[in-house]
């Protein structure tokens, strides 16, 4: 079985500051990694994913994440945040043997302050 831990439930940050949202996972098999974002009153939207290849992946809205296999982490970063980045961010994994079931972390609420 897989599990995903998002270490911070809430992250407040000032506008134009950098941010890192942390995600660690555990799994007995290979996994694929994802970040989803949920803006208020909207559905979950795919931000970026790591399937294979370069461990640094870039997503929409200037976000990037780095897969670190030895530390079983997939932290999300943005060098300069905007008010519009305020949302809930979910890290998720799919096990290589079960490509349909996303296992989610508990989410991190990012609040960008003016």
């Amino acid at each position, binding site marked *: 079985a897989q599990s*995903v831990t998002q270490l911070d439930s809430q992250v407040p940050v000032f506008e134009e500051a950098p941010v890192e949202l942390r995600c660690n996972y555990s799994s007995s098999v290979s996994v*694929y990694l*994802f970040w*989803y974002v949920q803006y208020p*009153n*909207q*559905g*979950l*939207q*795919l931000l970026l*994913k790591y*399937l294979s290849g370069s461990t640094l992946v870039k997503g929409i809205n200037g976000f990037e994440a780095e897969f670190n296999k030895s530390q079983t982490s997939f932290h999300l970063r943005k060098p300069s945040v905007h008010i519009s980045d305020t949302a809930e961010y*979910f890290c*998720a994994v*799919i096990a290589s043997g*079960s*490509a*349909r*079931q*996303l*296992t*989610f*972390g*508990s*989410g991190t609420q990012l609040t960008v302050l003016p």
Partner: protein
Amino acid sequence: EPEVTQTPSHQVTQMGQEVILRCVPISNHLYFYWYRQILGQKVEFLVSFYNNEISEKSEIFDDQFSVERPDGSNFTLKIRSTKLEDSAMYFCASSERDGGLYGYTFGSGTRLTVV
């Protein structure tokens, strides 16, 4: 941009009643899913559906749950006899290809409150 539409956005029902949650997936998507999030807990997989059959389901998806594609556009989740612990946000999702590797498109959810 194409959207997955869920109705209603909020539904209140009495314990023991049947409830149907409705979803309109993206028109050219062939794979459909339901997830749920109990308040304060993680988003959990319920079921995946393709070609009028369940392709995968979780332990949560027991006999009180069923899914259906009654016509060419709707995808529904039925809970036969609701319990208090069924109160949650239910998310529908669809994808063009099988599985989540290419990313699901999620709806904005239906908040189900069982009283």
